[in-house]
């Protein structure tokens, strides 16, 4: 039976992992991810989830343990945040290069120093080149649905790649939201048993993560790149099937009142919710502005982004991370590069804001939009502007 209840998003993720019949959870607790793994530890201890819970001594070990369990064909889940994701960094590359379908919830957290347990996208952006699929959730329901989809996507024979499901620290992890949980039998159909094609098996030995000298390394890396790009087709299929089964449809890029708008604002993650309220207010005041929400970050949805913004004159992008000494925000610079060769494209104006858990209110988004329009007319000597920093 489908159930709807008010539940903390982190706890709901634990429930979703249980619905997905994970075999192994290997994790190290870190704020603000803690409630996710605490709940999973409880579910395993109470016998509600028949899985192995591996408490390890660090995130590096957590991801290393996940390599092993995914390699034997066990359905593997973990979760982390901020510094924890950074400590995993080198192992993340191994997971994707060895084509191991691990699902990980990332409670997006700012990076030290100064120490911040609060949210931004610095951690997520620092791992964008590790070869994982990265999906950003806007609200609790999206996160839950995408945790379910992530297992399907990761384990699909055509994909076999690890997936991060990103949710913003506190704005999502610690919110109590109304969540609809799908029926268990339907989830079982939607996520069939994991049939990893070449598992570690003493009767049929394979070598994983072997040696790649110069005559072969480039071929291996290109095969990996082609595979990650091709995964987009499968992601689209899985989202379509999820929608047909459970009634909630997802796409890599989603417009909100964006059709025909001269000015577009682009956000990723939980801030899209506030941005929608700001768009409603501005629309009601007769302002010609709409919202684009980016959900799929890797593989980057080039075609969908180009299609979504091609008719606009101004595109204002909000990043929650800085690429120090570089072009500003990673999202903005990637969108600029996706549009550069296009004949018809909007002016792209970049803002960085919401760092280390700083809120951006409806009024804040209004300010960003009006300043963005101003810059589009007058130009700016800066690569990007930071929003809300006291002068």
């Amino acid at each position: 039976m489908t159930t709807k209840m008010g539940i903390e998003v982190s706890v709901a993720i634990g429930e979703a992992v249980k619905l997905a019949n994970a075999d192994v959870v290997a994790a190290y607790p870190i704020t603000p991810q803690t409630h996710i793994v605490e709940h999973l530890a409880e579910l395993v201890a109470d016998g509600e989830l028949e899985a192995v819970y591996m408490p390890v001594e660090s995130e590096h070990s957590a991801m290393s343990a996940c390599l092993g369990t995914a390699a034997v064909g066990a359905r593997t889940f973990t979760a982390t945040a901020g510094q924890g994701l950074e400590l995993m960094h080198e192992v993340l590359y191994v997971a994707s290069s060895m084509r191991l379908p691990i699902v990980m919830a990332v409670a997006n957290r700012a990076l030290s120093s100064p120490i911040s347990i609060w949210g931004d996208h610095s951690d997520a952006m620092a791992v964008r080149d590790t070869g994982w699929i990265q999906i950003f959730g806007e609200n609790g329901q999206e996160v839950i649905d995408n945790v379910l989809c992530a297992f399907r996507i990761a384990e699909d024979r055509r994909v076999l790649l690890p997936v991060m499901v990103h949710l913003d620290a506190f704005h999502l992890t610690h919110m109590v939201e109304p969540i609809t949980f799908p029926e268990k039998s339907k989830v079982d159909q939607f996520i069939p048993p994991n049939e990893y094609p070449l598992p570690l098996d003493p009767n049929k030995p394979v070598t994983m993560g072997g040696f790649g000298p110069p005559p072969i390394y480039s071929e291996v890396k290109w095969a990996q790149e082609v595979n990650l790009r091709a995964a987009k087709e499968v992601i689209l299929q899985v989202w379509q099937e999820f929608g047909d089964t459970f009634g909630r449809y997802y796409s890599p890029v989603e417009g909100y009142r964006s059709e025909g708008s001269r000015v577009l604002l682009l956000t990723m993650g939980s801030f899209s919710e506030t941005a929608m309220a700001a768009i409603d207010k501005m629309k009601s005041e007769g302002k010609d502005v709409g919202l684009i929400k980016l959900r799929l970050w890797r593989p980057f949805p080039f075609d969908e982004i180009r299609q979504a913004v091609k008719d606009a004159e101004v595109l204002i992008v909000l990043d929650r991370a800085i690429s120090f000494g570089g072009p500003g925000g990673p999202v903005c610079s990637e969108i600029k590069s996706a549009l550069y060769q296009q004949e018809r494209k909007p002016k792209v104006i970049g803002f960085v804001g919401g760092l280390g858990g700083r809120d951006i209110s409806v009024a804040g988004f209004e300010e960003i939009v009006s300043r963005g329009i101003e810059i589009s007319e007058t130009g700016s000597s800066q690569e990007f502007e930071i929003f809300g920093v006291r002068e």
Partner: protein
Amino acid sequence: MVKPEGALTWKDIEIGFMVTEPGSASQYRTGDWRSQKPIFDLEKCIKCGLCYIYCPEGCIRQNAEEDFEADMYYCKGCGICARECPKDVITMVEEEE
């Protein structure tokens, strides 16, 4: 291995570059790395077997005549055998181009 590494295209790469043929590392010609080769002056050899023990490639064997010799398919020319031989049986000489 069906094809040698240098002939594989990216489409030939197994999932995650896995090696599915057990023991295929024995096909890897570490001899290609060699710039010097060991020459044995067997007159002096006391058959202590230290060269056999120390060779990191495990490529020194006694042949049918019980003489110690290195398998040039694997010998990478590291010179450890020459260094460890107590009787100076082994000399490293430059490989010709």
